[in-house]
């Protein structure tokens, strides 16, 4: 009370400082009591600052339903690979080959659907099963190639840096053994839906259903986690914190669905749809909500599955144990070599998923597909709090990291910042984010 009664004697700066420190103390206490992952929260705050900042500078062009929808699709492919890169880095390894591997897998999948299935099997283009055969073959090849790199690393004793550096050259080079490296296009029309676009989205009601399922899952997982803590006598969050967390998380999910539905189909596509389905468009044109794009849905599923594998399955815990202390993990009875090989195999599968999304989105396979993606993927994982010293990393963090990176890129494009300047900004942000993280971690002890 004393500060309030004596405002005249304090300078405005002191008052501001006092208020800030009280707010930050209260916030810190609140966060501690509510038991929230501060790193994830910090990233969310940074993301909000970036978004609001771009929105102000661009005169309101950033926080539109359409731009946020674009952003979600543009982030998906890097985010998916970043979830795998987290496990690779946690196990004290690195995978430099993901960009080249993505290019190789994407190019192979294009060959399968444009040449091998239509000509090899003699069934022609555009079969209803073309896309699924293509994707399955791609996933399988990704697992084999990734697993091969893991095998050489784990059993051959070659450092993963070297193995995947070799992979970076080999997989890119192998693209040229197909069709002399021509651009392959167009893709199968069903396969193209994997790349998003208004037609490659699930629409209004399915999006709401996904959102509601998401909410139910969040509520259940909070409840189960609380029950588990009670059973083992761990400290629990106060009930108000539990309720607030549930409201915020559910609100975020339903808000995201609302935004995706607030972006209507482009007028031309809607008019075409109305014509094809014999609908008389109302004055002002037919409004079709777009909903969640298929690649974004894939990204969400991959994030959930990978988080589950990383934190709830023995395999995931083994990876973290290996990264924390390889020797102890091995002596503790973990088959570290097999685990490592599987980590790289999983990374290969995720590369195939992203390759399908990128080729479907571009409607073509080009020799430069995925060039330098390894840098974006590693950056996303590291911005998301994955530590190069091993044993520390978060899958949702990596996804957020990918969104942060893509937000910077898309925002700067909206502001007409030239490519070299974009690189400078992204580079500085990368180093600053990791530096800040290290500083905070040291201070916290």
């Amino acid at each position, binding site marked *: 009370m004393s500060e309030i009664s004596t405002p005249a004697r304090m300078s405005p700066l002191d008052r501001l400082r006092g208020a800030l420190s009280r707010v930050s103390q209260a916030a810190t206490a609140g966060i501690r009591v509510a038991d929230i992952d501060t790193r994830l929260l910090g990233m969310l705050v940074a993301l909000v600052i970036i978004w609001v900042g771009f929105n102000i500078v661009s005169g309101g062009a950033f926080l539109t339903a359409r*731009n946020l929808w674009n952003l979600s699709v543009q982030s998906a492919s890097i985010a998916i690979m970043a979830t795998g890169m987290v496990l690779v880095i946690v196990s004290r390894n690195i995978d430099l080959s993901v960009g080249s591997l993505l290019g190789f897998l994407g190019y192979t999948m294009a060959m399968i659907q444009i040449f091998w299935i239509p000509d090899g099997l003699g069934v022609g283009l555009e079969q209803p099963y073309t896309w699924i055969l293509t994707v399955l073959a791609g996933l399988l090849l990704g697992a084999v190639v990734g697993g091969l790199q893991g095998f050489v690393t784990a059993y051959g004793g070659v450092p993963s840096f070297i193995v995947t550096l070799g992979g970076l050259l080999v997989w890119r080079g192998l693209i040229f053994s197909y069709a002399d490296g021509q651009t392959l296009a167009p893709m199968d029309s069903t396969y193209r839906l994997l790349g998003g676009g208004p037609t490659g989205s699930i629409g209004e009601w399915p999006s709401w259903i996904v959102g509601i399922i998401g909410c139910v899952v969040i509520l259940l997982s909070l409840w189960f986690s609380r029950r588990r803590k009670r059973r083992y006598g761990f400290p629990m969050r106060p009930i108000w914190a539990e309720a607030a967390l549930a409201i915020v998380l559910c609100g975020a999910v339903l808000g995201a669905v609302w935004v995706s539905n607030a972006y209507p189909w482009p007028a031309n596509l809607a008019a075409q749809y109305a014509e094809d389905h014999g609908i008389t468009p109302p004055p002002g044109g037919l409004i079709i909500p777009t909903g969640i794009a298929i690649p974004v849905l894939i990204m969400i599923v991959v994030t959930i599955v990978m988080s589950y594998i990383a934190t709830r399955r023995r395999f995931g815990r083994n990876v973290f144990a290996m990264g924390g202390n390889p020797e102890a993990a091995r002596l503790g009875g973990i088959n570290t070599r097999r685990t490592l090989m599987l980590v790289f195999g999983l990374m290969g599968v995720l590369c195939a998923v992203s390759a399908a999304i990128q080729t479907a989105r571009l409607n073509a396979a080009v020799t430069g597909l995925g060039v330098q993606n390894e840098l974006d993927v590693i950056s996303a994982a590291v911005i998301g709090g994955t530590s190069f010293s091993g044993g520390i990393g978060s899958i949702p963090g990596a996804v957020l990291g990918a969104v942060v990176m893509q937000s910077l890129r898309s925002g700067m494009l909206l502001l007409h910042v030239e490519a070299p300047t974009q690189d400078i900004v992204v580079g500085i942000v990368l180093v600053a984010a990791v530096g800040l993280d290290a500083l905070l971690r040291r201070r916290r002890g």
Partner: protein
Amino acid sequence: MRIPRLAALGAVVTIVLAACTPGSSATSSASAGGSTGGTADCTVAVSWNNYQEERWALRDEPNIKAALEEVGAQYISADAGSSEEQQATDIENLLSQGADVLIILAQNTETILPSVQAAVDQGVPVIGYDRLIESEDALYVSFDNVRVGEMQAEAVLEQVSEGNFVIIKGNGADANSDFLRQGYVNAGVPAEGESSDTITIVGETYTDNWDPALAQTEMEQFLTENDNNVDAVLSENDGMAGGVVAALEAQGLAGQVPVSGQDGDIAALNRVALGTQTVDVWKDARELGRAAGEAAAQLCGNPDIAAVADTTTFDSPGGNTLTSILLDPIAITQDNLDVVLDADWITPEDLCQGVEAGSVAACP
């Protein structure tokens, strides 16, 4: 642990062998050409900057070789793998192997100069192949890239002469990006940051590595920013045009907004037939190889580049007046698709895939 280690080694060997499998054998389509003044036991060396790109092996090299074979000259080559330092080393090696004429596809127009000087000092004439070398001692053999830009802009302006234009440029460090942009200005499109009474540039950017996926993202952002009010797109090559068309398709605008390109990519020529790309400026790399080979054959007889037949002068951005052989590109639109068919550049099946029969003359 012995067996897994052996297996790992085996796996490595497998990868290496797989990588060494030859892609395809290049075909030569040499026609009888009149080259004069060649001598036997002349060695012509080519320093490639990055032989891994498809066109050099497939289109350029066989025609250089064919022109040299006609006069009985020998062909040697080296590949620098996109490295300036490696290219300097390559050129030293080629000179010490006894090259009499040097053809250079320069990785970098500036850093190549000491190597060019070294060759000229030894009395070896130099041909700057496809990419500019800023030296008056080198013969510049290329397509006229400013002209390519003019042709792209002319074809697009014929469809839409006013409104909001988007310009997707290639790599900022590549001189060709700016040559093409100069061509747009020559054809009546405003320069960067300016606008005319009829044309407003609502989006313009360089694209790292001419990356099609990046071009798609750029186009999406320009469409978002302008609420789809884009009337024409000048894309500097076919790969990026593919990304642009994919972005337009997602908005239901493909085929309504003119898009340019160059290189004669199979997929791009198909887009021209489909109507989603307006123009593809085609540079027949086989003719370029032929022209360089014939020039090299002449230099075998007389190392003076000024004496080579059919040369003109070219004022370079660096202020040099270069002796050059500049070939004219051809603008391919829906009206003259038969040109690429007749040249066996593309098969009718590839060109007409998905095209409604009879909608264009080349796809009956």
